[in-house]
């Protein structure tokens, strides 16, 4: 079980800000593949992961980082703060 958060246009495309997902995915990339296979809105949001960023327990990470022990994962576009 992992908390999955979506921000900005990822959130809009999926139509959800957060959800709890039952998964055995070993990496963010594997989780993305699982979600994209679920429904077209996920496939649309995750069509190009090179345009996305991922955070594990609120720290930026790569799509092939290990998910073991992670409680919260977030997907979002590149930040535009400041």
């Amino acid at each position, binding site marked *: 079980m992992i908390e999955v958060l979506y921000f900005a246009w990822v959130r809009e495309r999926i139509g959800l800000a957060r959800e709890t997902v039952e998964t055995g995915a070993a990496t963010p990339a594997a989780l993305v593949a699982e979600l994209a296979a679920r429904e077209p809105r996920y496939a649309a949001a995750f069509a190009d992961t090179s345009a996305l960023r991922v955070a594990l327990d609120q720290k930026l990470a790569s799509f092939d980082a290990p998910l073991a022990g992670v409680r919260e994962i977030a997907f979002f576009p590149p930040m535009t*703060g400041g």
Partner: protein
Amino acid sequence: MRVQVQAASFDPAAEIAGFAKGRRDIGAEVSFIGRVRDDSGHLLALEIEHYPGMTEAAISAMAQEAVTRWQLLECLVLHRYGRLAPGEPIMMVATAARHRAEAFAAAEFLMDYLKSRAPFWKKEITQRGGDWVAAKASDEDALTRW
């Protein structure tokens, strides 16, 4: 060091008035104020989304690094989220050091990192709807100088 993430507006001048007040060891204070800019004349508002929790942690880590690296005597980062009108202040950074080079470098470092590493996303609202602001390659490139 003070890091604040808030929906409410703030008064940059009042922040500067209170910053590093009464100290005699500070020679240089640099501040940056970012405002909602309306290039087209058609902007109704800017909506800023953020990632509560991660935002504060990410900014605090950047501010701590700036304080250590440039031996800052004071450091302030304030950033808003929510719906902002054109002309309103979005955020500010203030740094204080003995000399100007350190205060300038730390403020620019913080701005570069806030742009690309703090979890904020901007959406421009016009009568036609909303457009997410795209990240610029030049902002990502700016990080390589630090």
